[in-house]
């Protein structure tokens, strides 16, 4: 896999940085030949992952750090990694179930969106050790689609 470009962000766990993070990643992802609809899906999954870090990882504490790394590989593959150093998840499998949420106001949809709009998703977490969410999506070529 050859890395074409990458960006690494580090920011404070403030709610206003959720829109900052998704806008940055959406803008970076537009270097791939993908549709506006696909960019919107990428922005959504970043929003969910960063919101999870603030709400669940840090229990809404605003003075913590969140790290986002985005890589474009092999021209068409986008990899996103969102990391926090928060409280971690005891049962990752349970947390990823569609109806599960420790916060009833968000319906437990965050991981559902991430799984649905990305090709692969991996959550690495344990109590007290923070959480890393890795997601990958390969976009089809719209150039070929246009000629099909």
């Amino acid at each position, binding site marked *: 896999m050859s890395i074409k470009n990458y960006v690494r962000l580090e920011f404070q766990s403030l709610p*206003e940085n959720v829109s900052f993070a998704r806008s940055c990643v959406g803008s970076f992802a537009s270097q791939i030949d993908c549709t506006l609809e696909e960019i919107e899906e990428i922005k959504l999954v970043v929003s969910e992952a960063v919101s999870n870090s603030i709400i669940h990882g840090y229990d809404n504490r605003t003075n913590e750090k969140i790290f986002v790394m985005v890589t474009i590989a092999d021209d068409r593959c986008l990899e996103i990694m969102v990391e926090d150093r928060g409280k971690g998840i005891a049962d990752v499998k349970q947390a990823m179930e569609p109806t599960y949420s420790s916060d009833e106001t*968000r*319906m437990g*949809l965050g991981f559902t969106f991430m799984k649905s709009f990305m090709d692969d998703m991996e959550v690495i977490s344990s109590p007290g050790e923070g959480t890393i969410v890795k997601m990958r999506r390969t976009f089809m070529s719209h150039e070929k689609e246009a000629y099909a």
Partner: protein
Amino acid sequence: MDIEMKQVRNTLIVKLKGELDMQVADKLRKELDKKLENEKIENLIINLGKVTFIDSSGLGVIIGRYKKVSSRKGKMYIVGANPSVEKILVFCGINKLVPIYGSEQDIINI
């Protein structure tokens, strides 16, 4: 996010503008609940015409208000959602609980 509220008889019409995420969800939830608890409101129309983004925090506010409104036998509608916002609403099945219409006029014409 701009929140504009207008009450027409027993219906609260809420026009939202901007991005509906965790940064604004709590404020929106509190403002809607204050109105729903203090005024004689039966029905709720949420106009998403100028909402450019929604995630699970925003969806949670909508579902939570649907539960409140329906528990009082009221009705709730969403109007004007742009295609990308409507796609998310349909994806998570909110449209099965809260009908989505093109405009407020469409609801009056039902």
